[in-house]
Every structure is written in C-alpha cells, then in structure tokens.
C-alpha cells in the first residue's frame, strides 16, 4: 500500500511469483495448522535449493544477502498463496545469532544444515515458571570442567517434537543480580540422553508446541554461544528484524482476502452494515501498513528501530484478531464449523483461523508486556 517495487524488485517479484505458483504444492496452500514434518520438509528444501530459504543471511553463509525490500517481497508472495508456516527458528533466530556471535566451528557445523533443512531447531527460552518474566528462568547449567550438566524444564518450543537441536537460555550464575546477568546461551543436540519431549496441542487442534524435560543433560563446553553469563544480550540483540515479521500487515490482509471471498460467495458483500465494518477493518490495517513501511524505512536506513516499535505489535495483533472476528461474523451460521467453508471453490478454515489468532497477543511478548515496555521505556512513567 505504501510501497512500490523498484524496477529490480518488480522483476524479482515476478520471478518469485511464477516460481512459487509452479512449485508450491497445492496441498500445502491455505493450511492453518502446521503440516507434519514429512509433508512439509520437501517444500522447505525446495525453497532452500532455490536459494530463498534465508534471504536475509549474507551470501558467504549461504544466504542471498537480500535487501529488506526483497525479503518482504518473498514474504508477501508466500503469503499470497497461503504458503504453510515453516520451522524458522533456525533460519530466523539462531542463524543471525551464530553469524554474529558464533565461533568459526559453530558456524561451520550448524549454518549449512539450517539452510539445507537437514536440522530443525527449537527455541528453548520459556519455562513453566518463566513466561512473561523470562529473566527468572531456573534451568541451570553446572560447570563440570569439560562440559555443562543441564537440569530443568523448557516449554512452548514451537515444533519442538520435530526438532533435532535446541538453542536455549540457561542459568549459569544463580547469585547474579540483576537476574538476567546470570544467563548463558547454549546449543543442545536433542538426541542427548536425559531429554524427554512432550508434545502440546493448541486450541486450534494444531500440535504446535513441545515441552522439554532436561535431566542431567551433558552439553559440551563448545556449545556455549557468546560469553558465559552473556546470553541475555545474545538472545535479545537481533529482535528488531523479528518484530518486523510479526507486525507485517500481510497476516491481516490474508484474512481480509478470505472475508471478501466468503462475503462474495454468500451475498453479504452487498450489505451496507458489512461494508462499513469491512471499511473500518481495512482502514485500520492500512494504518498498520503505514507503521510497517515506516519501520522498514528506518531499518533500511540503518537506524535502530527503538522501543516504540512495540506499538506496531499492539496495533497489528489487534487488527489480526479483529479480522478473524469479522471472518467468523461473515460466516453466519457456519461461524462455529470446524469443516472448511467453501468460498466459490476455495476452502476456508474459519474457526481455526480465529483460534490461531488468539496467540498473537500472547506470544512474542504479550500485549501486557508490550504496554509495560512502552510505559516505562518510551513514556518514562515511574514505578
């Protein structure tokens, strides 16, 4: 809406669009739950072979060194075909961290397998007692000379039951104040003895998460990333890019496209009351798109995004949830079906889309945490 592709970008978009339409399997389009690993990974590997799995990585690590504009084009074109969610913990989170903080050996060992899709990574940050208050995590890694011995419980590992390795934050100094000064960042092979994985199904009936129990798990010292007790900075250093991903208007626009298809199919499109609600939603998403492209401009200009970019997440997640509510409304008496609704041949999972969206205001720093950040760090309010 606020962005026109330049000549080179337009050509890239055309290339991406035609390649995707030929190569993205029909059965993987429009899925709201994550497909199983066996079904999904060939697609991951196809994208990888095309060189598009890690557009933001530098070329010498196997990425395409893409501009921000190209990264967004890829994201938009994938969304246009409702491509499935991929396991992106490795590509989006660990990769950039290793590129910045990893030893040469760590880079050599892990980066190629992330790119190729041979190794799937899980993110081990949250614990049952440390969600919003992440700094209070208690999984502890004891120094045993040549290795760490890790004990604790991690939870909310997206795709954890399908993962091969996990990067995690662990406590290496229990006396440190502030608490986050005693946390280290390390990598663990999930085949190591002592690790038990329990899958967790979400309310949209998607086996999205896992819980990881770590009992006397041996982690070699060379798996420490960054300095001992310096893990907090390692984990938080590269969040701006992630915020752009979660605040993209694309997620809401995909829902709007489905609303419009359903409304066209069932005739509601001509109802002035529906039109007014749709207008309100689209205008709100347009404002969100403005924030998004504003942020893109800041990052593309090499400037820091700043803590007030938390407002983007608040606005974006509100819009997403509002969109899924209108999707339910436009479904009329079918607003509680788990069966996909038919919009002139296109099947639409209305209840699943609605339920999946409930996560938006909880994960990636809940809306309450975002408001705390804004109140304290941006507005400078006391207490």
């Amino acid at each position: 809406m606020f962005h026109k592709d330049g000549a080179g970008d337009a050509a890239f978009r055309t290339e991406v669009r035609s390649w995707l339409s030929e190569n993205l399997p029909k059965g993987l389009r429009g899925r709201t739950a994550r497909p199983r690993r066996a079904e999904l990974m060939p697609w991951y590997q196809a994208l990888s072979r095309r060189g598009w799995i890690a557009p933001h990585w530098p070329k010498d690590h196997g990425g395409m060194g893409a501009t921000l504009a190209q990264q967004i084009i890829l994201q938009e074109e994938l969304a246009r075909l409702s491509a499935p969610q991929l396991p992106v913990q490795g590509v989006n989170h660990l990769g950039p961290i290793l590129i910045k903080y990893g030893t040469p050996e760590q880079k050599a060992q892990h980066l190629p397998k992330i790119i190729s899709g041979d190794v799937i990574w899980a993110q081990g940050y949250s614990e049952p007692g440390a969600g919003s208050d992440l700094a209070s995590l208690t999984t502890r890694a004891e120094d045993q000379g040549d290795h760490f011995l890790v004990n604790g419980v991690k939870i909310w590992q997206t795709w954890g039951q399908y993962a091969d390795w996990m990067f995690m934050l662990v406590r290496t100094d229990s006396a440190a104040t502030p608490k986050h000064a005693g946390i280290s960042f390390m990598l663990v092979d999930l085949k190591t003895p002592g690790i038990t994985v329990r899958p967790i199904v979400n309310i949209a009936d998607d086996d999205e998460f896992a819980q990881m129990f770590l009992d006397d798990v041996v982690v070699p010292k060379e798996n420490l990333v960054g300095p001992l007790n310096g893990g907090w900075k390692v984990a938080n250093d590269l969040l701006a890019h992630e915020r752009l991903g979660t605040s993209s208007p694309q997620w809401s626009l995909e829902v709007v496209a489905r609303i419009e298809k359903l409304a066209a199919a069932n005739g509601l499109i001509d109802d002035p009351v529906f039109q007014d609600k749709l207008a309100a939603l689209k205008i709100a998403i347009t404002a969100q798109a403005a924030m998004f492209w504003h942020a893109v401009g800041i990052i593309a200009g090499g400037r820091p995004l700043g803590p007030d970019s938390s407002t983007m997440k608040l606005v974006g997640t509100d819009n997403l949830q509002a969109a899924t509510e209108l999707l339910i409304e436009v479904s009329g008496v079918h607003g509680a079906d788990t069966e996909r609704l038919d919009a002139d041949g296109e099947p639409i999972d209305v209840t699943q889309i609605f339920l999946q969206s409930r996560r938006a205001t909880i994960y990636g720093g809940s809306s309450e945490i975002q408001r705390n950040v804004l109140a304290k760090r941006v507005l400078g309010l006391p207490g």
Partner: protein
Amino acid sequence: MELLLTDEQRQLQDSVSRMFAQAGGVKRTRSLRGKAGGFDREIHARMGAEGLFGILVPAELGGLELGLTEVALVMIEVGRALAPEPIAETIVAAHVLTQSGDAALREVLFEQVVGGQRIVVPAFADRRVGARPAGAVIGDRLDGVLSQAPHAAVADGFLIETGARATAALCHVGSDSAGLGIASVAMVDGRCYGRLRLDGVVARRVADNAGVEAAYDLALFAAAAELVGVMSAAHDMTVEYLKTRQQFGKLIGSFQALQHRAADDLARLVSARSFVFQVAGQGLPLSSAMASALKVHCGDKALEVTKSAIQLHGAIGFTDEHDIGLYLKRAMWLSTWLGNAAVHRTRYMAMQV
C-alpha cells in the same frame, strides 16, 4: 448482584449443578469431544427422569409447570458444566409439543421427548438477511435444504422450520424418514450438527407461524442463559488463576492492569446475568425484540469474557489441554447458533414496537 431466589429455585440449581459434577464435569465434556453425537444419551435420559425437560410443561401433562427463571437456572448450570447434551433443544421441543393442537402427535412424541428417551431437535431456518428459506411444503411433503440441525446425526427426529417467513411452520420429521439426507458437520465445541436435505419428505405440522417465532424466541432465551453459565465458569476459573499464578515474584492478580480487565469482565457477566433474569421475570410469551437483544448481549459478552480468559491465562490458555479454551469454543457455537449478533441486531430493530 444477588439473585432473589426461592428455596425451591436454589434446590433446583444445586441439584442440576451436582448432577453434572457427579457425571464428571468438564472432564466428561472433554472425553466426549468428537465422539459420535458428542454427548451421553444416558445423562440426557437422567435429566428427563428428573423432570428437567418439563420445566415449562403444565402439571396436567406431568410437567413441573415452572417458568423462565427455572429454565435460566438450569441452562446456566448446563453452561457452567459445558454439558454437551441437547438440553436447550429438548426444552424447546417439549414446549412446542405441549402447545401443539395435534393430540395424536403429542401422544406419540411428547412423553418420550420430555422423558429424555427420544431426541427431537428444533431446526430453524437461517435468519440472515438474504438467506434462502429453508424449505417449502409441497402438498404434505417437504422439499429443501436446512443449513443447521443440532446433533442431527444422532437425533431421532426434527422440528423443521419450513416456508417463507409469513407462512412458516414447524413440521416434525423422523430421522428415518424417506427422502431425508443428513450430512454431519463437526462443530468447534466437539459436537456435531447436520445439514439436512429434504426431498419429498412426509412431515407433520406441529406449529404455525406464531408458534415458530415463540419456539425460536425460547431457544434464544435458553442459549442466552447457557452463555451466562459459560462465561461465569470461565471468569471464575480465570480469577482463580490470577490468584495462584506468579510472575515477577508476585501473584499476577496483583497487577492492576489485569485486575481492571477482570473487573470489566465481571461487569460483562453481571450485566448478562441480570438481563437473563429480568427477561425471565417478564414470563412467557417472550417479546421477540427482547429475545434478540438478549441473544446479542449474552453472545457478545460471553465471547469477550472467554477471549479475555484465554489472554489472562497466557500461553497455557492457548493449549488444548487446558480447559479454559473449551469455554471459548462453546461460546463460539452458542453465539452462532440461531443467528449471530449481526442477525439479531437487525431482528431487534425490525421487531421493536
């Protein structure tokens, strides 16, 4: 705010509450999800044996001859327990059958329906503006399509709304009738409804136009009361969670932003509950405008409270293994069934005097 109930009303409320608790509570609902029918015919029959489907039935027909307040008390407990049986449906069906002039029909069906042995569900037409009428009576046969009959796959019969608005009627159709096709659709709350296709089905007229609206309004009322039960249990569970979950070294219920959210949810709940009981106090026949207003309000508030409940639970609230999501899902079905808020705002304006 305190409900001014009689001792008998309190006993009714307690006995229903106890029955569902003894049957297994929400755990039972969870275990029945996705199973054929999604409910337990034995529990349904037990409710029938205790007379609960006869709340509105005259004493001369063996009913309890009580009123809407008692319907509300029962349906709130149904909502709190997430009981999956077709209870609102049966109360409505029993009421329709007692109002029917067709004595023969009453003899055949009524006793079994009110007793809970036979499941007959009302299947109303989609009231959305522009939605096609459900079916048409041609001679004494029904033709057409009905988008939504609750529990259709296991029901023994239906009270089907037919015809255009002004000439609408409710007709009884047995589930084994020739020409009746049923396609079962899984609902988000773990139960099923069915799409009915009627192809020259022989049917028996049970209620005329006025009777259709009265039955529909009663169903709206029962659904609204059930929604109050759903949001009240979800809110209780959430307040309890706020008092036990710790973050940042404190109970999260001590954070003012969460306190205020819980207070706003309480206001939603209290307003919906007062609304149900004030409408109940006006007795039968229900005003159609009021029934639609009530459905809008209770549906919207229940969705708000149950969504808020998940948000306040955080990540655990987003899992299937935690019960809190079940309340949101039931609220989704109940606010959709019989027409969503948009439909009922329109009906409210059209029906106003």
